[in-house]
């Protein structure tokens, strides 16, 4: 199997920093690491399994309604995840609120189904979906780590910046909590990536 299938989406073709997909949710759910991890995992499951399922039935799908069929499959997985979170991780489900439901509209998922799953076998499609979800999740986790550390002084809700820092005059950066800072951070990540990977730079 071509290693590029799972290597590319993680760095060279990262859905967030290179394809610039799924920006909305990566700004919205990265205030805390816990929410970002759940979101990353949810998106991985949805991209992976909906790609696999669509790939399984790809030869039977009537071409004229293929987008609708894809949407139904994606929506099913998203609702399943939403239901499971409500039952087993209610607080996380509340803090992610509408964004779990909005996974449906995450361009990465429909993008990968259209571009990959419709023309490939189920197993490569599953791997492609999982890898794209992982690439997205990775950016989410990096963003959330920076934002939670500097915005609230915590990691996974645990205080990591010692009290003595605050006593010495350190203040949490309130801007980190707000979405604009997430956009700036995404920009910084894109900048770093492009300076490493010269072929992405526009002439």
């Amino acid at each position, binding site marked *: 199997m071509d290693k590029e299938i799972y290597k590319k989406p993680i760095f060279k073709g990262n859905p967030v920093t290179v394809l610039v997909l799924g920006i909305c949710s990566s700004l919205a759910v990265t205030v805390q690491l816990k929410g970002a991890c759940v979101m990353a995992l949810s998106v991985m499951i949805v991209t992976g399994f909906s790609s696999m399922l669509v790939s399984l039935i790809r*030869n039977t799908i009537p071409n*004229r309604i293929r987008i*609708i069929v894809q949407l139904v*499959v994606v929506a*099913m997985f998203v609702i399943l995840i939403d239901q499971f979170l*409500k039952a087993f991780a209610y607080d996380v489900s509340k803090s992610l609120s509408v964004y779990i439901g909005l996974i449906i509209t995450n361009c990465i998922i429909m993008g990968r189904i259209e571009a990959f799953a419709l023309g490939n076998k189920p197993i490569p499609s599953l791997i492609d979906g999982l890898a794209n979800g992982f690439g997205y999740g990775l950016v989410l986790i990096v963003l959330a780590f920076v934002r939670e550390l500097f915005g609230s002084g915590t990691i996974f809700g645990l205080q990591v910046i010692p009290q003595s820092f605050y006593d010495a005059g350190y203040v949490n950066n309130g801007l980190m909590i707000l979405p604009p800072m997430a956009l700036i951070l995404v920009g910084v990540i894109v900048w770093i990536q492009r300076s490493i990977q010269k072929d992405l730079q526009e002439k």
Partner: protein
Amino acid sequence: MNTNSNVYTVVYAAILVAVVAGILAFVSTSLSGKQQENVALEKQQLILRAAGLGAEIPAGQSKSDYIKGLWNEHIGENSFVLNANGEKIGEAEEAFAIDMKSQNSLLKKGMIEEIQLPVFVCDINGETINIFPCYGAGLWGPIWGYVAVASDYQTVVGATFDHKSETPGLGGEIANPSFQAQFAGKQLIKDGAFKSISIIKGGAPSGDENGVDAITGATITSKALDVAIASWLDLYQPYFNLKKGVVMSGDCCGDGCGECEDGCSGEHNGQHNCQHHQNSAQTVAQNVQDDCSGNCDECGKCDGQEKKVNNI
């Protein structure tokens, strides 16, 4: 097979939708018990937080155990249900199970006499705090909350609100503890009459005992919350008045007084006298707990006072 024919397309879509719907229905049914438990726990926490309890879960303790523990300790079986006249019609379990959405639609339709009003009574170190719900339509979906009132029936101890789908960062801020903290210490009374808490666009003047700041950028949600609180607390006014001892016509002594003159035995529970009609709210708060109808004026002072009070 021709996958592009109309028949194939329609049949395919129908089968796909039916299968997906079946899977979702099955999962939703099998998880609903667990989900409802979470919702109930959330509700208990929201009620407790209005009274200033359970905001922080101590480390090392599960949220579910902690909230249930607090609930049993402070609220337990003390809650009850009122009708629109302020009369008790139900017990604690019913109070918790009342669906605010359907009660609110009764309110909207004006079917006040059928409405059921839950009151959650929270006991903190011997001090009684009554917690009243509110419910209304926000911008995108329902908003609801609880207002905790001290035993004088006019000082707000705290309030909590939640919402289904208000915009995060704008209307959603009603669920933010720093917005809710504004309600503590506000008065539900102005110039001797009931006044709900106003949510004031542009900010409440400092020292305003009846108003709090609205949320910038969330005018509709702020207004909706204002209406929700006012309309629901208004429903509880017969009960407030009963507790405060302001006798309304048709309630308690208001009706009874005419009959009292020949009906009084002078032995009615020893303490039940007309003094309370003269603003002694506290005495009444204790007294009205017994059934006082028709027996209010063994002291014989009822006549004059009663009429005055009725006019309030």
